[in-house]
């Protein structure tokens, strides 16, 4: 869309919009990372109010995801569904979020009940919204209710104004909407950089895995770039509430806007990491050059890159979509942090990409990404090795508001169903969903946006599609449950975990469902063989998920922790923990808040929230052992072709690990024997992990643990006691 068109469109919106509510407030000055106020908005009756954040709640939940879980817990009952007005969307950056000196300090954490899991979901996202919202006076934004017509919520952090507008006309898709909303609220060209917009898109309305796009204004390209709160369908909740956009404007970000206790230490820590990244990133992960997509060829080499719905871990055509190819597609030499001071700069952009399909065919656009997850998800996992398809699919997923991870895993599952005649052209409406058919995948994506045809089925996600195919089309439940890559209703992210028992647990035990942000142990476990025993694996599955939770309490990004490492890290006692960077985080927290935590207290902060989230799952009818079981595709070969493709490896495992002689067995028998062994191993792992975490055999945190953590709220204890006596 050119500038004149946009100005026309914005003029029309200005004419059509109607102010529903205006709320004025005196922006709280931030004290050591906290404003101590939460903005509550009920969009059913347009109530807007300011809530205090008590010290006790800060002590127990820290901030970010912790605050979000607490507010949601108090808003929903065990019977609340994702599309009930009671469900909330809570956005919070956490106390460290908003500092400008240390890389990766601008994350927002979003919490809501998920359409795909039915339980509590958390998703982290970059972009400027969270910090600008905090500088506007709010530790968290809590949205409840449902609007009657499409609305836009606006926060002006300098004037102290919150407004709700009814905006019945205009675009919904994010790449246009984010620009128009920015244009709408910017009083000058210069102000655009101080505006961040949250939006979803048309497909978020018609599928269950909608994302929220959080923008940051790219000063060089003069465009709102989009980062996604991708997992678990919170964008779907957003559109179901008839929210079109939430915008914040705050002019005047400075190095001390977060008003930390000790800015000097923060500056020293930040500068040290900037230098580390400058010196070593080019020899380590090349984040500044290509971002997370550097992993494509590494994963392919280790047989970990998902191919054909996670059947295989590598493919001879993977070189066509590897980081060397993608590095030529994205703009080089342009620092692309999604918040100030992120010298890791993993965000990448393809500029002037001319779209080949869909409603914007022929338009030249800026596409964010592609990140590793997107390349693997919509590319290799679907058997599509075409970088332009990946970029186009990335663009449409973003603007339509769809999670590229869930889209990729769902599409790969559908393709395998199609190749096994579980799906056919009658069901797909004539679409030939073979692996590698990029036109077919793209068509389904456009259908998802319109809510038409097979897109309606595809947008349900793996769990619901499995049930539909079983119930309506008589598909074999065992096979579908084996190949449907979901746990708890959430689709897997893009790593093959077959050869790493710890990662099988990392995925299937994760609180929100199989997303690797909780635990990523493949290198430690499979490649390096550093955690060989069940106890070692259980320790890793205790420490790392808990440690990683901490980023989400504080508005931090995980990448600068271990995608850059000090050159002498391998000489430390526990290199996998990156001790020097952990110490940085302890000091960062203390320098912002003025508190005096150590690395043990840091773990306790996380443990409180992690266990609370587990009990939250219990409250919603989940959170027990039966919900922690992975599909067999994530553990071993389901089909004969899959077994035979790595026969030598699997035969060896039968001989050495299972203790049977594969020579006299049929492939089917071998598959069965391996499967039995792998599930037994998994069961032993789960026992060890539950024990290490202080949970009972059914995966429920004990009353003693919750008391020790100070999370023994009466409702929590009641829930645990009810379920433990069953």
């Amino acid at each position, binding site marked *: 869309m050119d500038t004149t068109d946009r100005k026309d469109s914005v003029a029309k919106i200005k004419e059509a919009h109607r102010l529903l509510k205006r709320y004025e407030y005196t922006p709280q000055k931030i004290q050591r990372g906290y404003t101590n106020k939460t903005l509550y908005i009920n969009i059913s009756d347009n109530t807007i109010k300011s809530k205090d954040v008590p010290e006790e709640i800060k002590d127990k939940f820290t901030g970010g995801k912790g605050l979000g879980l607490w507010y949601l817990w108090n808003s929903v009952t065990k019977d609340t569904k994702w599309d009930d007005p009671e469900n909330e969307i809570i956005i919070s950056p956490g106390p460290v979020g908003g500092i400008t000196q240390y890389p990766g300090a601008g994350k927002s954490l979003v919490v809501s009940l998920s359409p795909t899991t039915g339980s509590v979901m958390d998703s982290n996202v970059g972009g400027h919204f969270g910090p600008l919202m905090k500088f506007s006076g709010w530790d968290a934004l809590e949205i409840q209710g449902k609007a009657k017509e499409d609305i836009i919520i606006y926060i002006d952090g300098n004037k102290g104004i919150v407004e709700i507008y009814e905006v019945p006309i205009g675009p919904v898709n994010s790449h246009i909407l984010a620009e128009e909303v920015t244009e709408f609220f910017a009083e000058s060209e210069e102000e655009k950089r101080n505006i961040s917009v949250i939006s979803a898109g048309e497909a978020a309305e018609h599928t269950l895995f909608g994302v929220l796009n959080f923008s940051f204004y790219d000063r060089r390209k003069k465009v709102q770039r989009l980062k996604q709160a991708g997992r678990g369908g919170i964008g779907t909740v957003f559109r179901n509430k008839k929210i079109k956009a939430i915008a914040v404007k705050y002019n005047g970000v400075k190095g001390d806007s977060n008003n930390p206790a000790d800015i000097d230490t923060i500056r020293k820590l930040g500068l040290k990491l900037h230098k580390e990244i400058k010196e070593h990133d080019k020899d*380590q992960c090349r984040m500044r050059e290509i971002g997370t997509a550097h992993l494509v060829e590494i994963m392919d080499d280790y*047989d970990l890159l998902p191919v054909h719905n996670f059947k295989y871990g590598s493919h001879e055509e993977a070189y066509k979509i590897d980081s060397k190819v993608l590095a030529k597609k994205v703009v080089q030499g342009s620092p692309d942090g999604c918040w100030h001071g992120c010298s890791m700069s993993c965000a990448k952009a393809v500029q002037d990409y001319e779209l080949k399909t869909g409603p914007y065919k022929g338009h030249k656009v800026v596409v964010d990404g592609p990140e590793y997850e997107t390349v693997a998800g919509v590319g290799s996992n679907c058997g599509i090795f075409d970088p332009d398809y990946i970029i186009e699919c990335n663009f449409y997923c973003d603007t339509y508001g769809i999670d590229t991870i869930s889209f990729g895993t769902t599409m790969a599952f559908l393709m395998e169903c199609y190749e096994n005649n579980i799906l056919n052209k009658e069901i797909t409406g004539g679409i030939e969903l073979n692996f590698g058919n990029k036109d077919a995948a793209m068509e389904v994506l456009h259908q998802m946006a319109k809510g038409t045809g097979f897109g309606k089925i595809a947008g349900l996600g793996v769990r619901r599609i499995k049930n539909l195919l079983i119930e309506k089309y008589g598909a074999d439940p065992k096979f579908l449950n084996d190949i449907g890559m979901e746990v708890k209703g959430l689709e897997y992210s893009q790593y093959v975990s077959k050869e790493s028992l710890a990662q099988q647990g990392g995925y299937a035990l994760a609180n929100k469902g199989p997303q690797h942000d909780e635990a*990523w142990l493949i290198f430690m476990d499979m490649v390096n063989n550093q955690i060989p025993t069940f106890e070692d694996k259980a320790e890793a599955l205790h420490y790392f998920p808990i440690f990683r939770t901490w980023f989400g309490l504080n508005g931090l990004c995980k990448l600068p922790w271990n995608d850059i490492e000090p050159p002498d890290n391998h000489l430390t006692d526990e290199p996998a923990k990156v001790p020097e960077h952990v110490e940085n985080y302890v000091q960062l927290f203390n320098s912002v808040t003025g508190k005096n935590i150590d690395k043990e207290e840091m773990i306790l902060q996380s443990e409180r929230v992690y266990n609370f989230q587990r009990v939250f799952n219990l409250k919603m009818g989940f959170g027990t052992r039966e919900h922690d079981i992975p599909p067999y595709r994530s553990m071993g070969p389901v089909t004969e072709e899959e077994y035979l493709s790595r026969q030598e490896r699997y035969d060896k495992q039968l001989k050495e690990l299972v203790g049977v002689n594969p020579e006299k067995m049929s492939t089917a028998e071998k598959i069965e024997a391996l499967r039995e062994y792998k599930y037994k191993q998994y069961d032993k792992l789960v026992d060890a992990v539950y024990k290490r975490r202080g949970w009972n055999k059914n995966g429920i945190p004990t009353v003693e643990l919750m008391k020790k953590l100070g999370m023994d709220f009466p409702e929590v204890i009641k829930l645990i006691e009810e379920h433990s006596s069953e």
Partner: protein
Amino acid sequence: MIRVNQRDMDFREGMTVKNLLEDLKYSFPNLIVRINGEYIPRESYEKTVIKDNDDISIIHPIAGG
């Protein structure tokens, strides 16, 4: 027979660290290699010959996902 990350592997006369990394498809540039506890710097991969019964550890240090 050699041991690599506590797993048995066949020994081949004359194999270097570089050969071993290629066999294993370890393409990440920044690995930590030790032979019988002794650290082998990257520039020595090509000239370091592996002996039978060597105990080798290859650590991929950066934690990925």
